[in-house]
Every structure is written in C-alpha cells, then in structure tokens.
C-alpha cells in the first residue's frame, strides 16, 4: 500500500520534471527586439512577444488534447477527421488482421505441435518467413490485392501470424506426457483430447503468443498506414507532419501509446484467465 503510494508520488515527480524541462525549453525568447518601431509594426505580434519556437509548449499541447477529447469523432472530409475516428480505423484493421491470423495460426500450430514430421517439414519456411519485416510484403500485397485497405490488413495478418504459430506449436508440443496418458487410458477421442486436454494445457503459451502478436500488430499498423494513407492513426500522424502541426503529432503519438497499452492490458487479462498453477 505504502509502496504503491510512494511509486505514485515518484511517477508524478518524474512527469513534473519532464513537463517542466519541456516548458522551459519552449518558452518564447525575449531580447531579440526589433530594431526600430516601424519594423516592429511590420512584424506585428511576433515582435511584441519575441521569437516563438515552432515546438508547442506543454500548455499548447494541453489545449490541443482538450480539443481532441471534446470532439474525438468529427468528420470534415478526407483530411480532417477526429482522432477517435482515426484510432477506430486502426484498431479495426489490427483486430481484423489479428483475428484472421489467429484463425490460421492456432489450428496450424496445433498440427505442427502434434506432429514432429510436419514440424520438421515446415520449420525451414517458418524460419525464413518469420524475420521478414511485415512492411516488405506491402508492395506485393498492393500488387496482388489491388486495394490499400486490404493490403494494410494483410500486413497485420502476416506480422501477427508468426508469434502465434510458434507459441501454439511449442505449447502443444510440450503438453505433459502424463496428461496425454490419462486421456489415452480413458480412451478419449482425438477431438475431445485436443479440445479438453491439449488446448487448456497449451492455452497460457498460446495466449502469450497472442499478446506478442497484438503488440507487434499495433507497432506495424502505424507504419503501414503512413504508407497506404487515407485513414488511420498512422495516416493522421503523417498528415499532421505535412500540416506541420507538432501539437497534433504529439497528440497522435500519445493516443498510439494509450491504445497500445489498452490492447496489451486486455490480453494480459485473457492470459491470466487461462493460466493455471501446477
């Protein structure tokens, strides 16, 4: 209890230091006063307050964030959508790609884990395909699928599949011999054995793979959307770069972090739900 309180205080302190340093670094610089009053008149407000950095102050960012929170879901044309709308596009793509990957990876992982023969046969392919950056698939996806949105989902699919496939295969292969022996002596059918013994036994390992996958998928979607454009939080950040709105870029970055944390939290809950103690 006491530890938690102290940790909270320390967290706030770190936040205060960072925001304070940022505030000081972006303060308007006085001193470069305009040469004469006529020139000052020409320069207008800029001369009165001194040179302002293009980087927003914490207060600027705060105002921007308040704006986004007040109205997250507006849609005023292709280049002006609320941050909530953009996040929803990205999350939908990630979940769709992830789900498709799970539908392929878990059954395939089961087969690979149960059969040493299939494991050996597929291992070289997995080893080669696994380290390929998911974005390298993008041009191929755009060429074959001919749709930028579907290509982005494909990229999520291809990057989520490996951790789930490998973890499922590993979890299934390392189910304790004695549990399988119990199922054997009880003459349990292969399907029931898979669903009632192997699946729950391997579930914690499979969930670990899913948690890794969703993390990677969330990393990749930002880059993918920067490439394909149109919608999504990655596109939002890139678009605001073109607008030179650093405050919006920072808002986007913060939103990416928060949603990523939320996704990870969800999967850690699921992981806890299927974990058992021996």
């Amino acid at each position, binding site marked *: 209890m006491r530890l938690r309180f102290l940790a909270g205080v320390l967290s706030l302190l770190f936040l205060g230091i960072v925001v304070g340093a940022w505030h000081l670094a972006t303060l308007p610089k006085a001193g470069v006063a305009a040469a004469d009053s006529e020139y000052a008149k020409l320069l207008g407000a800029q001369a009165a307050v001194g040179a302002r950095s293009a980087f927003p102050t914490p207060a600027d960012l705060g105002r921007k964030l308040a704006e986004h929170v007040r109205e997250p879901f507006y849609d005023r044309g292709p280049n002006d959508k609320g941050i909530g709308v953009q996040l929803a596009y990205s999350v939908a793509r990630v979940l769709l790609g992830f789900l498709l990957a799970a539908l392929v990876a878990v059954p395939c992982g089961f087969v690979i884990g149960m059969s040493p023969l299939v494991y050996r046969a597929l291992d070289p392919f997995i080893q080669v395909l696994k380290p390929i950056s998911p974005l390298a698939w993008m041009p191929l996806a755009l060429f074959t699928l001919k749709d930028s949105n579907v290509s982005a989902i494909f990229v999520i699919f291809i990057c989520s599949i490996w951790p789930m496939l490998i973890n499922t295969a590993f979890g299934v292969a390392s189910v*304790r011999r*004695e*549990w399988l*022996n*119990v199922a*054997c*002596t*009880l*003459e*349990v059918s292969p399907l029931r054995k898979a669903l*009632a*013994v192997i699946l*729950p*036994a391997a*579930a914690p390992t499979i969930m670990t793979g899913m948690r890794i996958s969703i993390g990677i998928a969330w990393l990749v979607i930002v880059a993918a959307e920067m490439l394909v454009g149109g919608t999504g939080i990655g596109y939002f950040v890139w678009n605001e770069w073109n607008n030179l709105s650093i405050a919006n870029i920072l808002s986007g970055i913060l939103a990416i972090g928060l949603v990523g944390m939320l996704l990870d939290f969800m999967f850690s809950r699921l992981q806890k739900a*299927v974990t*058992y*103690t*021996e």
Partner: protein
Amino acid sequence: MSYLQVQGLAKRYPGKGGDSCVFEGVDFAVEKGEFACIIGHSGCGKTTILNILAGLDAASAGVVLMDNREVAGPSLDRGVVFQGHALMPWLSVLRNVAFAVRSRWPDWSRVQVQAHSQKFIDMVGLAGAEHKKPAELSGGMKQRVGIARAFAIQPKMLLLDEPFGALDALTRGNIQDELVRICAATHQTVFMITHDVDEALLLADRILLMSNGPGARIAEIVDNPLPKPRERQQVHHQPHYYRTRNHLVDFLVNRSKTYQLEEYRHEARRRRRH
C-alpha cells in the same frame, strides 16, 4: 484360467553394440479380486511392465491376456493411478473425476456424471474439497483424487504406479487404510508397484519380487500368509509377519542380484574388469 496372464514378457531397447534388455521372460498371473504387488529396485522395469499392462507401452516380446483377451492398447477396463498424480491443474477436483466418468459413460447426463463423481470423491474422504483446484491441495489429497478418478470408472483392473511414494509416512498410512477398505468393499483386482515392504505386506495378497536390471525377471512370487482383513495397527503382531518381512528384505538386499540373467552378470563382470 487366471484373470490376468502375463507370458514371456520382455522389453529391449536397441543400442550400440546390441540391444539392451530391461527385463525378459516375465511370467505371472493375477486372479480376479486379487491384490498383487511388485517389488524391485529402481531400473528393473516395474513401471515399464505397468505401462505395458495399461497399454501405454508396447512389449518387445510376450503377451498380456486379460479376461482371455489380448491387451493391445489403452482401455477403460484398466484404470491407472499415476506416480505423479497426473491431475489436470486447470480443472477442479470434481471436474477431474468427472472427466474420467464422462469418458466411461458418454451418454450420461450432467447430473448423473456429477453424482457419480461426487460419490467417489466422498469415498476417498475429500468431501468439501470438490471445487478446489489441484494446486490448492496437499500431496496426499492430490493422490486421493487420482485414486478416486481411477475407481470412478469402475475398471476391471486397477494399476497403481507407486502411488504413495512421494507422501509422508502419516499420510501414506491413512491412504493405505482407505485403499484396504475400498478394495475389500469393491473386490477390485489390483496390480501395484511399490518400494515399501511393509506396504506390500499390508495390501497385497501376492507379492512379485523382481531381480535387478538389466535383464531383470520375476525371481520369486510370495503368497502373503497374513490372513485378511489386515489392519495397519495389528498386522505386525501376526505370527508370520516378521518372518515374511525378513524374507522380502533379504531378497531386496541380497538375492535380487543373484537372479540376474547369467549373460548380464557375465557382462557386468567384464565391464568391472575394464
């Protein structure tokens, strides 16, 4: 004809410079309703024999007949209590037992399965713990669940692989008493592995003594002279108790070596010289 017949059973593993033979020429029989124990040193292949009886392992030679039918694979006719309880840690006590019951009688309703499972949980004295997970139970309680699960499918034969090996003496005594009581009530045919001479004398009607491996065999079969019912508190006061016990201990200490197959003793001597 005996209920269980084992004839010429052998297990060999292929290796460099010829096969290595764990045991060979193992013959014995167990009658219906009889409690048989097998005693021997580690490595003589006791667990392998039990696994072959269970259908989990295949023999290199020989046959196993139960009820005049050859044992060719695992079957619900033979319930197994595993050395390390082998409970599924994600299921509660009740559901661990119910898993076995549902396998035995797939057509039963949920209520029937639950009631039947509960009966056997009560039998091993675990009433009140049925909704606990195995991780919340002590070693003795876990082993009781394993026993309840094996009894619940009402197998023709029960195979116990050193079920009390990992338990402390007090717990072991309690569960032994229960096993005596349950077996007397159900007339269960049992084949059990043990290291413990006293346990064998308390539980077994017939004690199989196995010589050392490699090349082990059943060296002696001792009929337990102590009359039934045997009780843990009284059994050592029986007139034949210590004579039989000494006979068994002598076997384990001395004679188990001399029964080893001649060729393996020769082999062992040759190896010692190098």
